[in-house]
C-alpha cells in the first residue's frame, strides 16, 4: 500500500464507526496473508513475522498507544472495532506482548529513557517480548511468587523460575514480576523488571502442551545480573502496576470470536456426518447458537461501557466464564457427533480447519488460562455479589 492512500491517524479517529470498520476490513483483507489466517495453533515468530511487519509498516501495530510514541491513538471503541475486524478475518495473534503489555506499562510508568529505548524497537519488530509472571508454585495465587531479585551494586541478581511463559523461545526480552522485599506482605514486595533473554544464567525450556505444541516455556534464572536501570516504576510497586495494566483487554477473553468460529465448524462437521437435519442434533445446535447470541449481547453491554469511556468492572469475569464454557460445549458436541472420526489426529477429509479431536483437546485450556474459571467465579461471587470470604 503506498503512502498516499494511508490516512493520517487523526482521520481514523474522526471517521464514523462504519466507515472506519470498512476501511480496516479492506486493508486486512488485502494484507493479511491468507495462509496465516485461523491458524490451528499459536504461531511462532518465524511464521507470524510477515503479518507483524505488515501491520508495522502500515502504522497499525499499536492501536491503543498514543500517537506521540508511534501508536494509532485510537479511542477504546475504535480499538474494539479494529480488533473485531482482525478476529473476523482470522488474523493470527503475533508475538504481541510488547504491544499489549510492556508498551502500555512503559507509557504509563516508565521513564523517558526507557520509553525512548524500548518502544521504537517494539514497533520495528526488533524486540520480541514475553511475560514472566506465573511460577510453578504461584499460578492462581500469583502474589505468592518467589523469584527473587536482590540489589547488588548496580544490578539486580535474579534467581528463580517462571512458567507458562508464552513463546519465550521466540523472545529476546522478558518482563518479570520479582520479589524484592521478602518481609513485606506478599503483594507489597514485588517489583517489575525488564530482562534481556541473552544474559548468562537464563535457561529456556519449552513445555510441550496437551495439543503437542511448544507454545509455553519454563524460564530459569540462576544468578542473572540485570542492570538496575531496567526496573520499571518504584521498587515494590510491581504488583500495583501489573494490576492497573489489566485494562480493558480482559474483555477479549470473553470475545464471541472463538465460539462463533467453532460453531461454524460444528455446522460443517454435522454436514459431513450427515446429522445436520437430525432433530436431536438440530435442537442441540440451536441451543448453542442461542447461547452464542446471548454471549454477543452480554459482550455488547461491556463494549458499550468502554464506548462511554467507563472502565470495566469485575463483572467482565462473567463473559470469560460463559464464553470459555460455551466454546467447550461446542467442541464437545463436534467431538461427540463425529464419533470414530472425532478421535483422529488428522483433520476430517483433509480440511485443515475441521478437526474435532484437536479442537476438543485445545479447548481444555480456555477454562484454565487468563485466570481459571474457578478464580473467575470467585471474583464474581466476592466482587460482584459481595458474598463473604
Amino acid at each position: 500500500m503506498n503512502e498516499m492512500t494511508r490516512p493520517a491517524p487523526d482521520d481514523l479517529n474522526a471517521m464514523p464507526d462504519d466507515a472506519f470498520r470498512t476501511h480496516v476490513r479492506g486493508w486486512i483483507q488485502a494484507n493479511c496473508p491468507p495462509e496465516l489466517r485461523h491458524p490451528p495453533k499459536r504461531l511462532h515468530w518465524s511464521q507470524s513475522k510477515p503479518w507483524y511487519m505488515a501491520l508495522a509498516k502500515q502504522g497499525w501495530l499499536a492501536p491503543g498507544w498514543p500517537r506521540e510514541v508511534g501508536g494509532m491513538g485510537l479511542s477504546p471503541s475504535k480499538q474494539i472495532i479494529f480488533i473485531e475486524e482482525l478476529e473476523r478475518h482470522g488474523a493470527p495473534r503475533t508475538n504481541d506482548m510488547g504491544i499489549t503489555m510492556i508498551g502500555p506499562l512503559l507509557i504509563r510508568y516508565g521513564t523517558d529513557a526507557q520509553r525512548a529505548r524500548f518502544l521504537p524497537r517494539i514497533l520495528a519488530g526488533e524486540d520480541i517480548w514475553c511475560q514472566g509472571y506465573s511460577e510453578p508454585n504461584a499460578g492462581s495465587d500469583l502474589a505468592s511468587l518467589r523469584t527473587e531479585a536482590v540489589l547488588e551494586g548496580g544490578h539486580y541478581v535474579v534467581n528463580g523460575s517462571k512458567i507458562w511463559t508464552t513463546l519465550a523461545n521466540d523472545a529476546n526480552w522478558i518482563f518479570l514480576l520479582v520479589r524484592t522485599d521478602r518481609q513485606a506482605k506478599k503483594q507489597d514486595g514485588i517489583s517489575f523488571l525488564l530482562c534481556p533473554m541473552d544474559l548468562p544464567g537464563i535457561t529456556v525450556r519449552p513445555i510441550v502442551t496437551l495439543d503437542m505444541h511448544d507454545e509455553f516455556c519454563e524460564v530459569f534464572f540462576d544468578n542473572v545480573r540485570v542492570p538496575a536501570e531496567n526496573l520499571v516504576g518504584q521498587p515494590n510497586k510491581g504488583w500495583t502496576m501489573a494490576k492497573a495494566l489489566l485494562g480493558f483487554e480482559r474483555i477479549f477473553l470473553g470475545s464471541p470470536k472463538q465460539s462463533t468460529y467453532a460453531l461454524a465448524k460444528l455446522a460443517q462437521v454435522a454436514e459431513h456426518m450427515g446429522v445436520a437435519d437430525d432433530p436431536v442434533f438440530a435442537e442441540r445446535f440451536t441451543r448453542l447458537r442461542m447461547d452464542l447470541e446471548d454471549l454477543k449481547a452480554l459482550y455488547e453491554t461491556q463494549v458499550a461501557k468502554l464506548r462511554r469511556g467507563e472502565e470495566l468492572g469485575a463483572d467482565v469475569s462473567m463473559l470469560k466464564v460463559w464464553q470459555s464454557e460455551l466454546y467447550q460445549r461446542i467442541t464437545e458436541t463436534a467431538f461427540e457427533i463425529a464419533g470414530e472420526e472425532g478421535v483422529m489426529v488428522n483433520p476430517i477429509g483433509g480440511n485443515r480447519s475441521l478437526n474435532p479431536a484437536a479442537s476438543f483437546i485445545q479447548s481444555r485450556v480456555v477454562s484454565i488460562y487468563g485466570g481459571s474459571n474457578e478464580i473467575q467465579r470467585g471474583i464474581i461471587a466476592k466482587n460482584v455479589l459481595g458474598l463473604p470470604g
Partner: protein
Amino acid sequence: MSAVEDRAEGIRLLRDSAAAISPRNGPLGRVRALRSTEAGFDRAVLAEMGALGWLGLRVAEEAGGAGLGVAELCALAEELGHGLAPEPFVAVAAIAAPLVPEEDVIAGARVLLPAWAEKPHAVDASGTTSAAIDGATLRVTGRKIAVPMAAGADGFLVTAREGDALSVVLVETGVPGVTLHAESTVDGGHLGTLTLEAARCVRVAEDASSRIARLLDEAAIATAAELVGLMDRAFAITLDYLNTRQQFGKPIGAFQVLQHRAADLKIQLELARAAVSHAASVCDDGAPAAQRAAAASLAKARASDAALTVTRQAIQLHGGIGYTDEADIGLFLRRAMVLAACFGTATAHRRRYAEAAPPLDVDA
C-alpha cells in the same frame, strides 16, 4: 467357601496377576514409548497376556481356554485400563479367541482383530460387506472402518453377509484384494479402514448374527470396564494433586468448590463401575439378548461419558500443568477419547438402549 466367594477370590487373584503387565500406579513410560509406533502396541506384551491365559479366558476349557466369564474379562480389562495398556486385549480376548480358539491365537502369537463396523456410531454388524463362493474359493467384498490397532494384525475377522445370514470370515493381511489404511488417533494408536475387493477368506462362523451380537456386547462391556480402570486412576492422580498442590496457603482440595467437583466425579465413576458390574453379571447369567443388549448399552454409554467427564475435569483440576504433554493426566484424556468411541459411542448405545430396553413401568 461358597461358589460366589470362590469366584470373587478367583477374580481377586486375576486382578493381582495383572500387575505383571499393568502394575497399579506403575509408570507410563511404556505407553509413551509406544505412541505413534507402527503397530501401536507391543506384540511381546500381548504374547505375555497369552502366556498368562488371559486371551483364552472366554474360550471353553475343552477348547484350550480357561472357560471364565464376562466378570473375569472385565476385571482384567479394568486393570489394563488402569495402566493404559495399548494392546488390543478386549478385541482378542472377547471376540477373536472365542471365534478362532486356535493355539496361536490364544497364545497371542497370531493377532486377529475383529472388523465389524461400516459407519461411525455403529453398534452392530449390519452393513453391506458380503462374502460369496467363487469357484472353490470364498471371497469377501466390502469396507470396514475403525479397526483399532489394525496395523499390528495378522488377519481380520470380518462380519459379512452370505445371502440373508451373517457370517464371520477370516481374511489374512497381505492377500490380494486387502487394503488397509491406518489413521493415527489422538492417543498414539490408530484406527484402520479395511477395503476388501474379492479377497480370499475362510469362514469361521456361519449364520452367526446372534453370536456376533453377543460377542460385540461383551466387548462393549469389557471396553466399559477398561474405561472404569482408566478413570479410576485418572481420578486417583487428581485426588492426589488436590491433596498436595498448595495455593493461597492451603491444599487446593480444601476449597469447597473443588471438593464438590471431586464428589461429582466420584459419583460418575461409581455409576460406571456399577453399570459395568451389572452388565457383566447379566451376561454371565445368560440373560436373553434384549436384556443383555440393554445392560451392555447402559454400561458403555455411562462409562464413555463418565470417562470423558472425569478426564476432562482431571485436566481442569490440574490447571496449567494438566494442559501439558509431560503430565501423565493428559494420556488418560486422550485414551478416554478413543475408548469412548470403541465398540460403540455413547450416542450409539443410548440409541440402542431406547430400542432394547423393556417398556418403562409407569405404575412403579
